[in-house]
């Protein structure tokens, strides 16, 4: 168990060091939430066409934009794994006796930490646009846990795709195809109640929906979650563990 933790920490540590040395991607990923909240959100707040209960539309969508920011950032994480494969880094790591799942978990945790940086950016924009943020310790802690878990899910999903497609060109294509359906088939910018039945079914099978649901209850004053937090966290954790097992199984295939 201790060896597993050390291996996981070693990979996460290396990933975080790399991230801190090259924050370009973090900066570029910060642009999108700014646009969504500062432009799209401001305008749609005036329309009042989407029923959001007692919440202003901007308050309603802010957790959705945080989740979107995490999704868009994490879903392309796999490209770095393909890059590492092309450089032979994956081969060298895979001949060590380290547990395969520890190697994957280390990368997921690093992605979780990156998600927290994204969260800080979104919180900054939300404050600047007068979103009514809930600053209670329980709320902030819940957001932190949800952001880390959400990042782990989508980065590991990304790694699974990378292990299957193995080339940067194919990966970019699939990444682009997946992000928008995942985003729009969720409760990020409109409530589930507005969706037609089939889309609602899809949204309920989409982990992003549960992530947004937790964030909405924890992040915003007056925000409510449709599902109990225990249910949402159980779904998110279950999805992550399934993806972790699948990624650990597929990861060695990158060296073949």
């Amino acid at each position, binding site marked *: 168990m201790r060896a597993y933790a050390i291996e996981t920490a*070693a990979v996460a540590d290396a990933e975080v*060091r790399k991230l801190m040395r090259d924050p370009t991607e973090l900066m570029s990923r910060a642009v999108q939430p700014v646009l969504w909240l500062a432009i799209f959100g401001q305008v749609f707040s005036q329309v009042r066409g989407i029923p959001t209960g007692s919440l202003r539309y901007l308050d309603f969508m802010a957790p959705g934009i945080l989740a979107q920011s995490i999704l868009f950032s994490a879903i392309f994480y796999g490209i770095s794994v393909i890059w590492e494969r092309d450089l*032979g880094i994956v081969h060298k790591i895979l001949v060590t*006796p380290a547990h395969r799942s520890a190697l994957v978990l280390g990368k997921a945790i690093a992605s979780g930490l990156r998600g927290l940086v994204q969260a800080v950016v979104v919180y900054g924009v939300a404050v600047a646009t007068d979103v009514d943020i809930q600053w209670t310790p329980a709320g902030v802690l819940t957001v932190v846990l949800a952001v880390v878990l959400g990042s782990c899910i989508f980065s590991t999903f990304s790694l699974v795709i990378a292990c299957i497609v193995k080339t940067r060109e194919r990966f970019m294509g699939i990444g682009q195809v997946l992000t928008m359906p995942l985003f729009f088939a969720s409760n990020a910018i409109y409530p589930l109640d507005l969706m037609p039945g089939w889309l609602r079914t899809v949204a309920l099978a989409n982990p992003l929906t549960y992530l947004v649901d937790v964030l909405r209850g924890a992040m915003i004053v007056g925000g409510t979650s449709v599902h109990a937090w225990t249910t949402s966290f159980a779904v998110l954790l279950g999805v992550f563990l399934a993806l972790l097992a699948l990624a650990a199984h597929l990861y060695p295939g990158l060296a*073949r």
Partner: protein
Amino acid sequence: MSASAELFAIATSRLGKRFDQIMALDGLDLGVARGIIFGLLGPNGAGKSTAIKILTTLLDASGGSAQVAGFDVAKEPVEVRRRIGYVPQLLSADGALTATENLNLSARLYGLRGAERAARVRDALAFAGLDGVADKLVRTYSGGMVRRLEIAQATLHGPEVLFLDEPTSGLDPVARHTVWDRLLELRRSRGMTILITTHDMEEADVLCDELAILHRGRLAAVGSPAALKAQVGPEADLEDVFAHFSGAVMDQGGRFRDIRESRGTLQRLG
């Protein structure tokens, strides 16, 4: 440990690998004695990299068996991994990390901890001659420095067997000689068994105690450089030996992926 495992660091029996319609490795029988530098030669596509990938547990064989350091690569891969080091053909040190960070990552993944890890990393930096630049990013290193770091990284846990896939490909003559010096030192001071693949006949002649020539996935010849030269003719050099046992396939250029990987390495070396 069986008698054959005591004698041989690497032993394969009818080892085979098929990729769809291509037989990359076809019934390879090989015995590599402990403590020697063993060279695997052959044109691109002959099966050298496939053999190394199977022996380092990166690839499953389609048939036959292989033992490394006394353990079966298919049945006991983790035990094999504890006892081997591997330097891939591609430059595999992470350019976004420093030498110290690269070494620390490997050390942690090999289960080295605390003071022992710090001592091993320090020794590895000294071995690679990188003490003065240990905290610089690897992407600023020359090709020779990267290769020396990779060898240090692959040996800091004290493996019994070290695998290197074309370790001096793309290096200038000075860097090539420093890599050779490190490998000879590993054999001399640690009694390490070293298996390398190479296209460089001078390298094979200078470094290797024994050579095997692969041709279309099969073992075409095996023996010491001197014995192989003697088999071909009194004036023969290793170029003649290579051409004799592998035919004229050197000119065919190998598979697309082999060439792409070689070029990728050369590109990174500038």
